């Protein structure tokens, strides 16, 4: 199954919408609560990163019986040094973004911690593609 949501850069009032929709689908699919939590944390952070750092983007979600793959594609400044961006506490967030309570430099490390697989591809001044894969577990199952 495939889902797609647009993500608006700079619009913090709508940040988290896609993540919430993904969560609702997973609840209907009887995915176990702990797995949903990991997916929600990862998708929320990736979504907020587009809102906070890029101009515009979208997420494409593909779900099958064993895994969920979420691809966050944006048009934006890109990430010059991905390794550095992954370091906990590293952030280039603007003062305005920090004012909103973001910019602790914990988003990408948090995704890394919760995802089974994380792939970041980026081109400076063009955009970034973040691909998150998480394997699904059925509620009450195996």
């Amino acid at each position: 199954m495939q889902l797609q949501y647009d993500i608006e850069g700079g619009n913090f009032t709508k940040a988290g919408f896609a993540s919430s929709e993904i969560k609702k689908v997973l609840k209907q699919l009887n995915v176990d609560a702990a797995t949903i939590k990991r997916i929600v944390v990862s998708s929320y952070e990736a979504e907020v990163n587009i809102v906070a750092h890029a101009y515009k983007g979208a997420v494409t979600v593909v779900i099958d019986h064993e895994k969920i793959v979420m691809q966050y594609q944006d048009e934006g400044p890109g990430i010059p040094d991905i390794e550095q961006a992954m370091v906990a506490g590293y952030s280039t967030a603007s003062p305005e973004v920090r004012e909103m309570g973001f910019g602790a430099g914990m988003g990408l490390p948090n995704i890394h911690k919760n995802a089974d697989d994380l792939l970041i591809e980026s081109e400076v001044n063009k955009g970034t593609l973040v691909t998150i894969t998480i394997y699904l577990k059925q509620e009450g199952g195996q």
Partner: protein
Amino acid sequence: MMQHPEFHHALTFNRETCVGCSHCMKVCPTEAIRVMEGKASLMPNRCVDCGECYRVCPVDAIGVEQDDFAMIYQFRHRVALVPGVLLGQLSDEIITRQIYSVLMEMGFTHICEVETGAEVLRKAMQSYINEHQENKPLISAFCPAVVRLIQVKFPSLVHNIITMKPPLDIAGLYIRDRLINEGAKPEEIGLFYFTPCAAKIAAVKSPVGEQKSVVDGVINMDFAYNKLLTTAKQSKSAMCPVPEDPQLSPEAILWSLTTGESNVMEGRSLAIDGINNVMAFLEELEDEEVSNIDFLELRACDESCAGGILTSTNRFLTAESMRRRAQQAEQSTDHNIEKLPEEHILAKYHSLKDQLTVDKVSPRSMLKLDENIQGALEKMQRVNELMEILPYVDCGICGSPTCQSLAEDIVREEAELERCIFIQRILEQKGTFTAEESAEVMKKIWGENKLNKEIK
């Protein structure tokens, strides 16, 4: 521990009285009601006993079961467990002392205010919170409708619930203990609770596994209110011995009102009342958009128990009068406040933990389309296909509350697509469905009566 296959519900739907107006179906927060054959019908596993349906029924077809009052006479020692909300409703009319004396006239031998145990409970909850930091924010189990709502709609949050029962159970334990100490035989003690809502009844009547609730019977608050009001007005002079004037602390008096718990817990606490507000908040909590809250007080009714479905007076006035009483208690120079033997009760509380934990809080998701992820994916695919052709009007004429719920009912094989009036029109235009067939479908949903009217 054994689990009940279905929730016990105190709400009853009377088919004779029901006129099939579908008002209840439209307000139910868990989409637990459908209309079939002109009558509302309940999906028991989805209902959380919030009573929203009861509030809107125009013909009183929804009732709340209660125990027969005469049942109190099966016991030699008959204790009335009186919630502050009942006193709050009456206090403008009658003074507390008079209410007590009427209760004695009604046949009770002892009276105990439900909130008597509030401070003890607060301490037990606080230590629970300190021991369960990893499950923050911890959610109070005070309101049984909220506990059930979390089970069916927010299963990922069941671990956040503080598995401790409300003050009622502490008060029950305390009074039972006291009477036994005074020489009463345990089997001769009967505890009767005046409930403000259906949710509390359900919680009392479906105890975990084989265990029995500390309460022996439940009497609806509207019944008690009526009786108290009329009797008190008739009997100018109370003939029976009047018990000591009750003295609760302000904290205990306010416990069942909104902020009653959140105001006295340590750390960052939040109080939310109204089931739709609670649902919206839990949704955000699940989305990880809320952080750093230690404690949540969530109540299904607006103004909490002052707005319970079995209350009889305006909820804002009831709350006001309870706040006034708390203020008076605050200022009272009379230090005759009845102190619970705290250490003893607390120890007992811990030793009876099993009995005092809320109905086994395990997730019982009503949202899943199928147990199995692959099966659920296939069903969701079909729901999405159906949503492409359904009109997005949510008119409810199909007998399901929304287009989405009709689509899910169809996939679960509990409804047919032809129930939708838009689909009927589409099929009629294509010539594959006749007007007569449409009428038959409508009769199946709404009953004969609504479709055999004379139009001049």
